[in-house]
């Protein structure tokens, strides 16, 4: 195996970037982490992801792979000697993919809405986030079947998809003075979150909440002063 054969282009605060890093850790694959400078995009990034110009990008050999969950599935399919990230049963795979898409398209969209919303709008987003967590609590029960993770005994696709947002979830709790993961309402998820964050594959890449909190202030300031984003 050639050293520096595997690179991840990313940034430490991004939950999307965490995902391929967790997957590579699960597979015990060494990789070089190339950190993008906040506020600018490197030539390598623009070359490797000309369509979306976004992180993360996995560069394997000289081949770029883009979109975090697509990268995770790629990692699972290439490094087959390590533990499996997706289940083997097609129906279970479909369920994990469904909830991973839900987390990205619906749930985190509401979390992001919460960031800048005020008054009534804020309450509406908060309700959406809480309702989403109730659905995920139920999904956890069904997927885990009494085991530690959505993936069973070990971290799987949906654990990675949802767990990567836990840092930002904690920041949101602090900024809004609310408890989103709650022992009374989402007991399964509370315990799952602890186990996820403590897992060897996750620990080294999960940012500390205090650091993220600081970063969120920098981000908010930049967003206030920044011109509207181009699509």
């Amino acid at each position, binding site marked *: 195996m050639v050293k520096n054969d595997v690179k991840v282009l990313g940034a430490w605060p991004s939950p999307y970037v965490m995902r391929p890093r967790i997957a590579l850790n699960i597979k015990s694959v060494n990789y070089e982490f190339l950190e993008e400078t906040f506020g600018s995009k490197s030539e390598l990034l623009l070359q490797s992801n000309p*369509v979306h110009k976004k992180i993360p990008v996995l560069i*394997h050999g000289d*081949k770029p*792979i*883009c*979109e975090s969950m*697509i*990268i995770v*599935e*790629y990692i699972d*399919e*290439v490094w087959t000697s390590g533990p499996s990230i997706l289940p083997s049963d*097609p*129906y279970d*795979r*479909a369920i994990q*993919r*469904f909830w991973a*898409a*839900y987390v990205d398209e619906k749930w985190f969209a509401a979390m992001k809405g919460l960031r800048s919303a005020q008054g009534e709008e804020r309450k509406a987003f908060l309700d959406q986030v809480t309702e989403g967590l109730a*659905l995920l609590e139920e999904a956890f029960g069904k997927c885990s079947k009494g085991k530690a993770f959505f993936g069973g005994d070990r971290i799987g696709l949906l654990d990675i998809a949802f767990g990567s947002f836990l840092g930002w979830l904690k920041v949101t709790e602090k900024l809004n003075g609310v408890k989103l993961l709650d022992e009374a309402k989402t007991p399964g998820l509370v315990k799952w979150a602890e186990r996820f964050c403590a897992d060897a594959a996750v620990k080294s890449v999960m940012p500390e909440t205090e650091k993220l909190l600081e970063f969120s202030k920098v981000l908010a300031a930049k967003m206030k002063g920044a011109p509207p984003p181009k*699509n």
Partner: protein
Amino acid sequence: MANEVVLLDFWPSMFGMRVRIALAEKGIKYEYKEEDLKNKSLLLLEMNPINKKIPVLIHNGKPVCESLIIVQYIDEVWNDKCPLLPSDPYQRAQARFWADFVDKKAYGASRKVCNTTGEEQEAGKKEFFEFLKTLEVELGDKPYFGGETFGYVDLSFITFYSWFHACEVLGNINIEAECPKIIAWAKRCLQKESVAKTLPDQKKVYEFVAQMRKRFVSE
């Protein structure tokens, strides 16, 4: 009850068509149930309580939702013939990327072209052509996005072709003039029985979209 397959769908849905093509490619017999989206069936609400959307594939009583997730499921279960995704992991990642690109861009751009006017529509048309041209570059000189054979990306995108006529009339645009390779590719795909039998008549789709437009635009 060896293999009971039911599809909850809506005939003009670009997403539902993907599943129909996949089922046809694999030669799978299934029961098609047309949904009235203004009056969703109890079955749909039970099978997809989270999003309440079509398509939903019900296989031996168990629901699978989201068109591309359904197509991958079909490919994995009925894996003895007509593979839809390539076998090489890098090619698979590329196929998933481009199908995801279609998902992110196509529907939104088509809706803006068909259901808006003025500046919003102009912006929608710009988005629409940017999206098509990016795909044209990706297609290059290959007969299909999948290379020599029709595959996952072709399946994900060809269903939007059934909306092209509606976009052209309502948006006053000429897609063939701007993106001839895309039109050539689409006609090639239409030579496949699974595609030709699935895609509804473009004029029928136009009538449907024109009706829908009335709800958004007063003219």
